[in-house]
């Protein structure tokens, strides 16, 4: 184990000298390996059509992981994303079912709802001083309870045209995938070039120090949590558009799935380090890997094992001296 950590540290140092983010490189190399394996092992994998399908399907994971990234960057974690996806999907499908003319307003309402829940998570975390892990388990539990009280079966429906969000294409490009990429680009720009974005890194790195330099750390955290809620609600809308119904059990696997790309993309749990570009590559990595394993007729069960091993591989490469969370 010793030589292994020494080697990974040495590689990391030399990359830093070349001004390359070592964490991005790891996920990039993994992605290239999957792509090469894909081209070699399956002749259908490499087609433009398949890659566009993967881009289309990765939108949901992309939205939730993007939100999760923001919360992780300020040093938090959001375990309520699955519940928020479910709640916004059910809310949307249930309301629109009998009033198709409300489609546009309800999109806005659902996004506002997600933002509000995110804000609430952030507010409770800051106000009570309780670890975000616990707070978000709590809000998730309440939301799941409310949704399941309302319905136990998939419910509601949406007008046909709304399916364009999930299935529509602009030329060869899937609309959902493009929207996801635009969101990533916007957040990337925000984090890199705006005061708010820099504050997010500062607060995640050391909240007290950030506060002393005059950053309104509470407002920064609240922004991150609210934005997370917004993107998660967007994922909920995507699911409704894809399946046409609001499924009360939809969100269960999403919560933990949203964390994998964030970690594989090199964001540090505990905050202040990483880049949403890494998250995006992480999303592509997981989506392409699952797609490839599907083509190779490898069962979902083994896909889980592979996913777990990738998390372990990635985190033990990134393993830093500072342990947080």
């Amino acid at each position: 184990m010793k030589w292994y950590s020494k080697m990974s540290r040495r590689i990391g140092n030399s990359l830093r000298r070349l001004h390359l983010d070592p964490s991005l490189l790891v996920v990039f190399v993994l992605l290239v390996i999957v792509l090469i394996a894909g081209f070699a092992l399956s002749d259908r994998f490499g087609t433009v059509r398949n890659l566009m399908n993967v881009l289309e399907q990765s939108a949901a994971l992309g939205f939730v992981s993007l939100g999760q990234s923001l919360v992780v960057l300020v040093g938090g974690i959001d375990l309520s994303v699955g519940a928020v996806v479910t709640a916004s999907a059910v809310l949307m499908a249930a309301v629109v079912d009998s009033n198709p003319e409300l489609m546009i307003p309800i999109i806005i309402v659902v996004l506002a709802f997600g933002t509000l829940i995110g804000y609430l998570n952030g507010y409770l975390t800051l106000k009570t001083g309780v670890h975000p892990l616990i707070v978000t388990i709590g809000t998730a539990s309440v939301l799941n309870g409310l949704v399941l009280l309302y319905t136990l079966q998939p419910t509601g429906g949406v007008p046909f045209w709304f399916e364009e969000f999930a299935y529509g294409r602009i030329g060869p490009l899937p609309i959902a995938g493009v929207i996801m990429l635009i969101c990533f680009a916007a957040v990337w720009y925000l984090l890199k070039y705006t005061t708010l974005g820099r504050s997010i890194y500062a607060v995640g790195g050391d909240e007290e120090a950030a506060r002393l330099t005059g950053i309104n750390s509470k407002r920064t955290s609240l922004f991150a949590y609210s934005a997370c809620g917004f993107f998660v609600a967007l994922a909920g809308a995507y699911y409704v558009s894809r399946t046409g119904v609001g499924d009360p059990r939809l969100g269960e696997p999403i919560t933990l799935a949203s964390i994998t790309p964030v970690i594989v993309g090199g964001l540090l749990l505990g905050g202040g380090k990483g880049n949403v570009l890494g998250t995006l590559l992480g999303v592509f990595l997981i989506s392409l890997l699952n797609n490839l394993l599907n083509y190779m007729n490898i069962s979902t069960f083994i896909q889980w094992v592979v996913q777990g091993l990738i998390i372990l591989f990635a985190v033990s490469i990134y393993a830093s001296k500072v342990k947080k969370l």
Partner: protein
Amino acid sequence: MSSQTIEFFTHSYLKRFALPLSMIALAVLATILQPAFLAPKNLQDIFTQAAPLGIVVLGQAFVVLVRGLDLSVASLMATVAVIATAFNATSNAAIPVIFAVAIGFSALVGFTNGILVTKRNVSPFLATLAMMIVLQGLRFYYTQGAPAGSLPDGFRFLGTGRIGGIPVGLIGFLCLFTLLGWLLHKSEFGRKVYITGGNPISATLCGINSDRIIILCYVICSVMSGIAGLFLVGFVGTVDNWVGRGYELDSIVAVVIGGIALSGGVGTIWGAALGALILVLLFNIVIILGLPVQAQLIIKGVIIIFAAAMFVRVQKV
């Protein structure tokens, strides 16, 4: 909360007795709302249900005390259940063998978690999350999604049997509680757990091998989950791939209600046990009041945020 209220709650007696008092208050409230609460049958049900969760919580407490977190407990419980049925044993003579294999496997899982957290410096959240996913994948691959196999009759006794009216699960829980309580509060190992949890660096400077303590805590947690899995599969009677689903979060909730700080080094085994009992009481109250089961989720969510906020307040003062 006003400063007077805080003072009231932080008064040493109240601080010590807050948990038992709130549990008694809950029980009284339940009896007032629904006298059937005190029926022996209902009490037996409560304890039968509390036993597996309680056992997991005891283990989780050790991990949380050394600043960790174990998300793999539920997945391990189900995996152990699958292992137990894989023997397809019919005679009760196989029970010790099943126990030995299950506990050995659990210890191995805990050891791996501990190694990842200490030697590879992986955050506990991620190490155990990955372990959870890996175990889940292996389990489903082995069972192909449809677990089969059978258990010796003796297992049903573990889960649902009674000795003199006392559920066997409760007796098992009390034995483990005594054992772990002694380990945590009376043994040298226990002191080292608190020192390591309070500050791993100063523990190392004191000459404590903190890595070893942390690894042992993960092993304890996993072994407890394995045992709980066996009790639970005995209670349910048949195996499925999701035995114990939700226990990872429930056990953390119970630990937090029990006043064990996620930041490590603070809390007692009594707190853990009472936390589990309070959680099961709340679930039971929802049922006997005839509220829909989903209300459990809502109440659990509100209680956990509230309880955690209380303890943060109390510890700050």
